[in-house]
């Protein structure tokens, strides 16, 4: 119940490589329980409670959580205490004669009114906190967050920055069924991304939240911010981060097969660092846009295509391109012409998990991934697609 250190989210509480005390034992109940008892001193690592977090709201939420918990514990002691006194003293084996009373209006009134008053006392601070949480006015930065199966997209409309945030590569490799990679050897297993969301500390940040396909939920425990991303609607939430650091969270609404594999990582940085990051991102975006106008070599496209395939396509169509029968189709280049293939990638297939990647990927990425798919993962058509052709087809 100690406050969490402000620079590290609890998600990173156990360093990579540290073994779970239970991990090494075979699945035998006795041995595991023994190990559990021996592991008690390490309990601090286990994460028992909500984080106190790094915003005013998250601390208020934490304090309210603790208050309600203590109220419940006290009520529990009284109720279970009375019950256990009965169990110990009012038992037939002690030769007691049962009483015959069966009702008391006074008692019923007391235990209706007192709980009601306790609830009123709890509801008042809760209502106050809620009113504050739902008021995003006066925000100083806006970030649009879009959920996709299965990655997050972040857009800074004021700064003209937009990027995707995918599960980190090391976690992606380790999470495959029977991958042979020990999750304990991966830094921040399942809680690492390729491109974290970068936010300045001390500014009121407003998030505009939506989704491109199914429901998702964006959640960072350290900010006490969680809301569902709903396709076709925009929801609003906000936070002010107090301390620089890396804060981690996960998608919190079932969104299909890889629901467990679309983490959220926020890098909170000082104002000047944030300004430098914005400038660098804008420059990188400009360079990327320029690269779409030149002719790309086949090998260059294949290399880029592999990387794009791994983050955008692999989750459904699998590493071998064979998909999952009945759920996600296999990628058979013989079944589609190059033009049809490009249209499918650009516009998706409505009503299925196949997204319109035209809105997500750059011309270079689409050219590269289509080229890759037609010349790898079991296909060998020899056809290549240039970024300029993608631009023309949009």
């Amino acid at each position, binding site marked *: 119940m100690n406050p969490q250190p402000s620079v590290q989210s*609890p*998600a990173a509480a156990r360093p990579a490589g540290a073994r779970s005390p239970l*991990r090494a034992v075979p*699945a035998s109940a006795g041995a595991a329980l023994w190990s559990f008892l021996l592991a008690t001193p390490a309990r601090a690592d*286990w*994460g*028992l409670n909500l984080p106190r977090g790094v915003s005013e709201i998250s601390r208020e939420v934490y304090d309210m959580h603790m208050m309600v918990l203590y109220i*419940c514990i006290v009520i529990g002691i009284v*109720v*279970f205490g*009375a019950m256990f006194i*009965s169990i110990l003293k*009012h*038992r*037939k084996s002690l030769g*007691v004669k049962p009483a*015959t*009373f*069966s*009702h008391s209006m006074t*008692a*019923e009134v007391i*235990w209706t009114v007192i*709980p*009601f008053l306790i609830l009123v006392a*709890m*509801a008042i601070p809760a*209502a106050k906190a*809620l009113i504050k*949480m739902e008021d995003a006015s006066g925000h100083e930065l806006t970030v649009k967050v879009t959920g996709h199966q299965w990655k997050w997209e972040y857009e800074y409309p004021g700064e003209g920055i937009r990027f995707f945030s995918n599960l980190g590569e090391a976690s992606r490799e380790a*999470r*495959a*069924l*029977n*991958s042979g990679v020990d*999750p*304990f050897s991966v830094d921040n297993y*399942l809680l690492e991304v390729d491109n974290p969301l970068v936010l300045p500390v001390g500014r009121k940040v407003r998030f505009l*939240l939506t989704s491109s396909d*199914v*429901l998702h939920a964006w*959640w960072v425990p350290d900010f006490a*911010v*969680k809301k*569902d991303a*709903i*396709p*076709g*609607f925009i929801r609003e939430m906000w936070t002010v981060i107090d301390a620089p650091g890396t804060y981690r969270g*996960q998608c*919190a609404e*079932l969104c*299909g*097969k890889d*629901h*467990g594999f679309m983490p959220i990582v926020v890098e909170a940085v000082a104002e000047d660092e944030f300004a430098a990051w914005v400038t660098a991102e804008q420059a990188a975006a400009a360079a990327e846009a320029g690269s779409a106008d030149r002719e790309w070599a086949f090998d260059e496209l294949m290399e880029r295509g592999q990387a794009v395939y791994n983050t955008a396509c692999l989750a459904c169509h699998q590493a071998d391109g064979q998909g999952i*029968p*009945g*759920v996600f189709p296999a990628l058979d280049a013989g079944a589609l012409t190059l033009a049809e293939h490009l249209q499918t990638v650009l516009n998706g297939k409505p*009503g299925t998990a196949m997204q319109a990647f035209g809105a997500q990927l750059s011309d270079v990425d689409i050219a590269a991934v289509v080229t890759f798919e037609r010349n790898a993962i079991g296909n060998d058509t020899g056809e290549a697609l240039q970024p300029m052709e993608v631009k023309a087809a949009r």
Partner: protein
Amino acid sequence: MNAYTGTADEHLDHDHGDHHGPAPGYLRWVTTTNHKDIGTLYLWFSLLMFFIGGAMALIIRAELFQPGLQIVDPHFFNQMTTMHALVMIFGVVMPAFVGLANWMLPMMVGAPDMALPRMNNWSFWILPFAFALMLATLFMEGGGPAAGWTLYPPLSLQGGDSLPFVIFSIHMLGASSIMGAINIIATIMNLRAPGMTYMKMPLFVWTWFITAYLLIAVMPVLAGAVTMLLTDAFFGTSFFNAAGGGDPVMFQHIFWFFGHPEVYILILPAFGLVSEIIPTFSRKPLFGYTSMVYATSSIAFLSFIVWAHHMFTVGMPLVGELFFMFTTMLIAVPTGVKVFNWVSTMWRGAMTFETPMLFALGFVVMFTIGGFSGLMLAMTPIDFQYHDTYFVVAHFHYVLVPGAVFGIIAGVYYWLPKWTGHHYNETLGKWHFWLSTVFVNLLFFPMHFVGLAGMPRRIPDYAVQFADFNAIATLGAFGFGFAQILLLVAVVQSILGGAKATGQVWDGTEITGGLEWTLSSPPPYHSFSPQPVVK
């Protein structure tokens, strides 16, 4: 669990003699209109589904034993979480309560049988076909439903071929439940013994009476919601598709308008069971009978105006969030009244601790723990942190497993000697209780911790800091699962033989009364004819 093995001739010398025994051969079970036979069918069906749903839970827990994916792929994992819930809710808890109602309501109100016996037969026999349809999807290409039992669109619409099967199955289950509910209401309203006024009905009868109304009110709502999913998926409507003018959140409102009363459908009969059992083994009348009836009614009423607390994070207007927070917190008042009444019933009683009483006491303690976490979840600002984490999983499993399921098991042990005419093996029953209680806490208590520490629900793999508690929960799951075999053994033993039970069965029933104890154990095939008179 059927007890009746005698022939019609043996019954001639019986007080309640009748000439109509069961039909010979296996057809008895297909054509029966007898409330005891149908109750038996419901209970066996429920036990079978309990082991099927339990096996799915063990697959889930086995995968979650360690981080990393070792056993199943995420798509199959999602099918397991979805099917586990559907099976446990619609295949285990609801049929078990209907089975207990079938067996006991006519005997408790002094009736010869249920009011609508042919419909009774039909409402049971729909069930196996509905579940055959639902479980068959697991063997199809693309597998079963994988969008969670709540079937939220748009994800559920991506589900492929399993969706229509699940929807038709839910339609059938709904029809079965509604027929069962009509039958229960008709029986209670029309077949009570002369002199049994409403406020003299046993609590189990009362809670089922209220539950039956809840069922009739909300099962059609669920049918409507899933039918809209069906037309969205196959007939081009856009109820839940923003691109066509719909709203995915509307599904959640409709679903939970069914779903919250459903939660009480799953617990109110258990309240009734515990309210029967605790007085018997405390040898003292139930404390606050009238307030118990009113508290149950209040809970039923409140259940219709709290639904959106299941969806606080969808981004409702502030006023909506405040309304649903206040109404939800209010439920603590009547629920608290019930717990206080149970404890007061024990107070200065002369308690003994046979298996049904142990399960009932376990129910009171662990259901209350689930109630506490429910109160925490009711508070919207902190619910934002709990929502869709393992804290929620811990909460609803506490109210459903050591809550509803313990209530059912308590009821089964309580009435088993009445049904079979033999006492079950008390030592075995106690082992069953203690193993279940230890393992169920090992299973679900650590989930509070991982939930608070940030583990989302419905994930097949997790970050390594959640590893230890998950390993413990998995050990608890296997222990709890295998301990339930003892229930099967106890029931089968009691059917086959054992110490003869008197009509009164438990000495405490002398004080607490109840018409079912005036009948022999096992009772005659047609319970009361003529009807007794209640003074």
